[in-house]
């Protein structure tokens, strides 16, 4: 078969190994290949990283719409003092509201590290010694579409491969009986849409499996995961005949390894049904665990995420969406809406981190919590009672936990009003470079040759934030 040899022109030993793989297997997908050779074989399922990884898995808890940094992780007492004053300096859009708007939420020091966290996030606050808060994030544009694309793919315009697809390309899957990259979202409505988890020009084996979690029954979660008109034993009987016929066909074709690969993929799929049925079934969790996460669409997705990570899924993204496709986009009535969102987002995220830790998974699972940007420290409208906060891209916060991150630390800072990242600014490209680094990949070496040039997640940018690495 005619293979995609041009894709693997990187210079690292990793690439040479891949090139060899591709030559040997002539067109097999890695996942299929893993099926062919089986675990523990010479090649195995996963690829070698560039260097020793701190984390093996990534879970990205994405707060669609952009949570306010100054009401979560970046306390700004000066806002109270200057409340009502109009912001000065260069603004993306002229302020038309009532000026600086202090957070109505109290901040307190937590954990041994004494990091200040808003009262709206009591559960994440409990885990703060395992977390690193980056307070100096910035992105290029304060509009949802480009900012979402930048956070997910590094590029403002569609369509480029997503962070998850790059990771899968670089590292391969851990468990070939499950997809390597799974996207969980409670509602089908999501701004931008599938371009956020696209494999784009990366081969199809690095694509995400997108799962709607509005209905948690397993056969609703996963398409085609079981046959409604045959049970397992009946299907086995059917597959036994298929196998015999395929083997007969194969024997007349000199054992063509590609045909062999198809046979193995069929067997893997058969076994995947049972494994996925179990892994995707959160009703198997004890009531106490389910209680800890909460019983909301986001909470159930977080619990499912833990089961998937435990089952060997490399990358899981959980989106915080609802009937409102970007709930955190609190342009109006911010002070009332924000704590409600936190109550849900905080409880599940805090439970997930605690749960991973208790199971010994946190040390090699990187958890990221945040949105596409932050929100303005000043009010968006003249209506003081229903005041909201607008999009804000020049300074916002991101939480990272586990996976080789230095816990109990704060990195970077915004100015006294939370307007602009001033100390150790971290661009989205830097965040990507750091995430790849934690997973053992050099963002400058993880390239894919397409349309005549070598593409990277970080384009020509990105700097690993070494100070947050344990």
């Amino acid at each position, binding site marked *: 078969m005619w293979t995609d040899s041009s894709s693997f022109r990187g210079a690292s030993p990793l690439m040479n190994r891949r090139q060899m793989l591709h030559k040997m297997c002539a067109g097999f997908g890695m996942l299929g290949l893993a099926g062919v050779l089986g675990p523990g074989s010479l090649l195995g399922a996963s690829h070698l990283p560039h260097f020793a990884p701190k984390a093996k898995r990534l879970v990205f808890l994405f707060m669609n719409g952009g949570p306010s940094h100054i009401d979560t992780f970046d306390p700004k007492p000066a806002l109270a003092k200057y409340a009502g004053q109009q912001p000065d300096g260069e603004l993306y859009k002229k302020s038309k509201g009532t000026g600086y708007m202090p957070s109505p939420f109290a901040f307190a020091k937590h954990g041994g590290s004494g990091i200040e966290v808003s009262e709206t996030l009591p559960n994440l606050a409990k885990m703060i010694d395992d977390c690193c808060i980056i307070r100096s994030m910035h992105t290029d544009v304060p509009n949802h579409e480009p900012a979402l694309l930048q956070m997910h793919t590094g590029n403002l315009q569609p369509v480029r491969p997503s962070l998850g697809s790059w990771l899968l390309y670089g590292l391969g899957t851990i468990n070939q009986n499950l997809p390597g990259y799974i996207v969980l979202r409670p509602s089908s409505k999501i701004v931008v849409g599938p*371009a956020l988890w696209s494999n784009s020009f990366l081969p199809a084996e690095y694509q995400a499996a997108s799962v709607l979690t509005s209905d948690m029954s397993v056969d609703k979660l996963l398409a085609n995961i079981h046959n*409604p008109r045959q049970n397992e034993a009946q299907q086995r009987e059917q*597959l036994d005949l298929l196998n015999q016929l395929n083997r007969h066909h194969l024997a007349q074709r000199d054992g063509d390894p590609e045909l062999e690969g198809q046979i193995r993929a*069929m067997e893997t*799929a*058969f076994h995947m049904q049972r494994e996925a049925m179990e892994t995707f079934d959160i009703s198997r969790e004890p009531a106490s665990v389910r209680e800890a996460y909460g019983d909301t669409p986001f909470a159930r997705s977080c619990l499912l995420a833990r089961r998937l990570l435990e089952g060997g899924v490399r990358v899981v993204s959980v989106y915080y969406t609802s009937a409102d496709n970007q709930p955190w986009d609190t342009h109006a009535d911010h002070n009332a809406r924000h704590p409600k969102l936190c109550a849900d987002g905080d409880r599940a995220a805090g439970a997930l981190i605690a749960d991973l830790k208790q199971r010994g998974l946190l040390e090699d699972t990187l958890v990221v919590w945040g949105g596409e940007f932050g929100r303005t420290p000043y009010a968006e409208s003249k209506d003081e009672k229903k005041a909201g906060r607008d999009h804000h891209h020049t300074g916002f916060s991101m939480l990272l936990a586990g996976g080789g991150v230095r816990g109990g630390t704060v990195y970077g800072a915004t100015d006294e009003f939370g307007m602009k990242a001033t100390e150790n600014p971290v661009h989205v490209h830097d965040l990507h470079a750091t995430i790849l680094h934690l997973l053992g990949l050099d963002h400058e070496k993880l390239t894919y040759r397409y349309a005549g040039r070598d593409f990277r997640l970080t384009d020509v940018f990105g700097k690993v934030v070494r100070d947050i690495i344990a």
Partner: protein
Amino acid sequence: MNLTHIASCLLTLCIVKAFAEDPAAQFEREVRPLLKQHCFECHGPDKQKGGLRLDQKEALLHGGDSEEPAILPGKSGASLLIKRTLSHDADDVMPPKGKRLEPAEIASLQTWIDAGAHWPASGNAELPGAPARGMTVTDHDRQFWAFQAPRTTDPVYEGTWPRQKLDYFVGARLREHGLEPTGETSRNAFIRRVTFDITGLPPTPDEVDHFLNDKSSNAHERVVERLLGSPQFGERMASMWLPLARFGEDQAHQVGDDTKFFYPNAHLYRAWVIDAFNRDLPYDQFLKLQLAADRIPGTAPADQAALGFLGLGPKYYNRNQLEVMADEWEDRVDTVTRTMLGLTVACARCHDHKFDPITTADYHALAGVFASTQMVNKTLGGLVEKENVKAEEMQPDTMHIVQEGEVQNLNVFIRGNVTRKGALIPRRFIEVLGGETSFADGSGRRELAEAIASRANPLTARVIVNRIWAQFFAQPLVSTPSNFGHSGALPSNRELLDDLAVRFMEHGWSIKSLVREIALSSTYRQGSGAPPVVTAADPSNEWLGRMNRRRLTVEQWRDAVLAVSGELADAPGAKSRDLDEATNRLRTVYARISRLKLNDILMQFDYPDANVHAEKRSVTTTPMQKLFVLNSPFIQRYAGTLAARLQGTAEMDTDRVTAAYLLLFSREPDVEERDLALRFLLKPNTAEMTQWERYAQLLLASNEMLYVD
């Protein structure tokens, strides 16, 4: 590249002349070699990390993206260049990665800056920060095989094996390696192969029977003629062409529920493509109409739909801003050049091409053509819809095409940045392909079309011949079909490719003639099971001493399932329908192609992303594909109809099994296959599916269903 050459030549000169120790000499003796050794790799003609280049004085004075000057003549202490070389921050120090300069080297730089940072005038031929001028196309560049005109040759092969001229090339190549071709495949295998390759469908049992019993000497010719004359030929060819044209019916993202950038009538372009292949529209005309149907006098109104090639291009978020439009123009340049010329010209948007003699000026000369062209929704009658009309409100005969816009030349956007303007570049064709004269006819699309679809163009015919070849051998002659440049692959048999390309043009650019020669060749008629000596000597089958076994594309496989179940609907010119619609019985080429969310079946079975030109398909084998084949509503539905169809063919199961094999695999079952089937069918069945449904499903799921020998 050339700049480095100039620099090294100058250096040689300087050493020979042995300058006295004046600033110029100090620069040449110490500073330039030092910069060249440590800096130019990343900050020179090829790369400008951080936007900085250190091989031009102006650039040094201007600085990189930070716009802080790299040097302040006379003030080494305040110069960034010195600060960075002295830095103790591992992330900050230059050169990076521990390749720190020696103190003496830093001292040389300090001396040079303090003495006024002398830079010889001859070393400053470049415009500041305008890498576009870094490269000129040389005769040496033109010597590259792909830029040379293809030539026809007459290879010698003694023997009776060849049936077509192309066979002489293949036979001769095999003999060079001491090999002979593999014997002819069976008639059963041939008709299955050639029918899938030409129409994308399996042959019917009647067609197989007719061919097996046709004792005339031209039985193969008759099959190929019948297939070339069938309307399914155009559908099959469109499946090859549409992904090249990044055919899509919406946009990668949507703001709210806004559909104004969607293409509800994209099917008009697809129908035009199918029809063009069916009427064997000469390929040069085929290209010209897609680029400039509105600019070619005498073009039939129905041919305006051809402009969908450009008009269905992606429209990006915040369009009408210059930087966004620049991205859209890049899409047009990329799609046109990779599809039609097999060149990756879009690489040269930000810098001269790293591998090919394609300059940033070439890029902007082409981008100017598209900057002078407007995307437009226009009815057959010529009525232009307003830009904000929603998809649902467009006239039913609205085509999504292009028309002339305000004619403009572009300034080079330095490093792709639209706010940094370099030289103004007149619209013209690519220099290395003869693009000397500026375009003068409106946007220049017609002139561009003529330059591409020209016998003088060394690439156009080769590129399409290579794509057609790949369709019949599951392996192209140039393994990078959209990149014939230096970073692409060399042809595995250049003489063969060239001869086919020349004769393709001589035969009036007829795709059908090319297909006829290929399908009737002895090379194509070989078996896929070669003797071990052949596979060992040529594991990747570069010399074509056997046929490649190949997996069906998603279009072919789904269409075959529908066809063998007796369910395939016949609907030429059809509107698109979603593949997930249970009652969608149209061929897969009529599936709705979304840029926003590609259908799951298409995505899982390797249909490429519709946002960009797809050079070729990846071929992946995943358990997710198999879950679809095991459990999906689609497979259950057609297992049911196939079972019913088979049961209707005869009374006896043994005859029904024979019917199944003829229908699905174009052959009769052997004894073992028949026995296995009959034993399975007699087993007591406890499942909700009938035993015949279970059997029909496993046949649809089999490898023989998925592969062609």
